[in-house]
């Protein structure tokens, strides 16, 4: 069970049970859809971007605890961040869950998102954790295509 507790940290279980910002965003000016064909997880990320700053962010969709909690905590972390800061956060998060030793990032800037560090022990679940972030990146880029993890 100890390994499982590494993956399913209390904060992750909490965000899975009660996801934050889990609705359509009124006044969103960017949206993107993400889909993981392997497991059927799907997510829509809504953004309200004003002068390059994330003023509003939310998500809808269905998925496992890891993807849902990842999306929920991502939205919580993004509010007030600039698009450039969001991109940096994406890189740091990605490096952490894939245990990419070549990437340099400041663990402190991840804050609560560090709860996902255990994911790298479960390679099959990395895509669950990163799907919301890939979808966010697509929304920031303004694309309308569905993002796929494949």
């Amino acid at each position, binding site marked *: *069970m100890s390994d499982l507790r590494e993956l399913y940290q209390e904060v992750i279980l909490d965000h899975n049970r009660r996801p934050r910002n889990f609705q359509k965003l009124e006044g969103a000016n960017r949206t993107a859809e993400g889909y993981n064909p392997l497991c*059927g997880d799907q997510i829509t990320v809504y953004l309200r971007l004003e002068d390059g700053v994330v003023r509003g962010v939310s998500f809808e969709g*269905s998925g496992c605890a890891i993807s849902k909690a990842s999306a929920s905590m991502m939205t919580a972390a993004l509010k007030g961040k600039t698009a450039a800061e969001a991109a940096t956060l994406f890189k740091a998060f990605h490096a952490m869950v894939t245990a990419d030793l070549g990437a340099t990032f400041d663990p402190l800037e991840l804050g609560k998102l560090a709860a996902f560090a255990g994911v790298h022990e479960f390679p099959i679940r990395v895509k669950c954790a990163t799907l919301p972030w890939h979808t966010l990146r697509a929304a920031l880029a303004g694309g309308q295509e569905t993002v796929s993890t494949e």
Partner: protein
Amino acid sequence: MRATHEMTASVPLPGASVAFDVDRVRKDFPLLRQQVHGKPLVYLDNAATSQKPQAVIDTLTRYYAEENSNVHRGVHLLSERATEAYEAGRATVQRFLNAADTREIIFVRGATEGINLVAQSYGRASIKPGDEIIISWMEHHSNIVPWQMLCEEKGAVLRVIPINEDGEVLLDEYARLLNPRTKFVALVHVSNALGTINPVKRMIEMAHRQRVPVLLDGAQAVAHLPVDVRALDCDFYVFSGHKALGPTGIGILYGKAAFLEDMPPYQGGGDMILSVTFEKTRYNTLPYKFEAGTPHIAGVVGLGAALDYLRGIGLDRIAAYEQALLAYGTDVLSAIPGLRLIGTAKEKASVLSFVIEGIHAHDIGTILDQEGIAIRAGHHCAMPVMQRFGVPATARASLVFYNTRGELDALGRAIGKAIELFS
């Protein structure tokens, strides 16, 4: 000659006609002895692929160590031996399915390729604009997409037989769908996502009354219940070797000779020709017309050993044991609060597909894996089934005769832990 016979006919057979001895059978499967995450492996992903008995592993080793050569080519002794082993494998499949003739047994890569062969060869030659092809709602993607591709190319229409809440086809709807425009029916024998055993004999009779040929996808059937293609009177039957204790990359297309004779080749190449000039190629006779290129000889030999092994135990005994095991597993899972079984057909085989309130199938899969239990989580390549039951995915424990009640108890306990973790 003698080596060939030993290889295909004298595989050690476990058990006589006495009570099914699962402990003894398990000893034949070396992979089952291992531990996963420090726990004894409980392998419940048999619908994805089955494990292999030592007899199959030994046969493959012996083939490569002693007989490897190309078939239908060399004049030398090894080529003769390889050819004999290959054709003996075909005879084993013919007996296993009770086909009338070895010419009706075509070696392909798997069930998927068998269906594609029929769609591309028979289908492209006979389906016309406005024709209709019937499939069921519970088909695997491999028995949907090849027909969709054919319909798109020909301007034909794909019709789908709906299913009820238990995951059974609605026969009266099927009867309504059959009409003079219907030109082909393709059905799954046993559903991989639901476990439903379809009433295929009756459905074939209904199609035949309108002179419509029927293909059965037997990928989930052949290792679990006796299949007699002549008793069923199906026109085509496909299955994959690796789901029936055999190697990956080898599968079977059975077709009635009357159909296969008239069908154009699927792929061109060596072995499928009688003579080639730049002006005209004469195609080989059955079954070689459909076997272009060097085939998966080792796969055929290994599949022969696998089917001999299954016959040695007896498909009737396997089916009886698995039915009891399925009933036991159904009781174990039904006792878990918040768990819903997906697929509760009266006629069912070896599949326990389920969802748990508040826990996604993938999380169940990860938690069970930590307990040493291998299941599948996802849409099982049957996305329309998931949509029908309003779930994004299910967790699926799929059983075979080497599974035990103790393993199903372990499954129940591990699910309990998952529920506890997520509560």
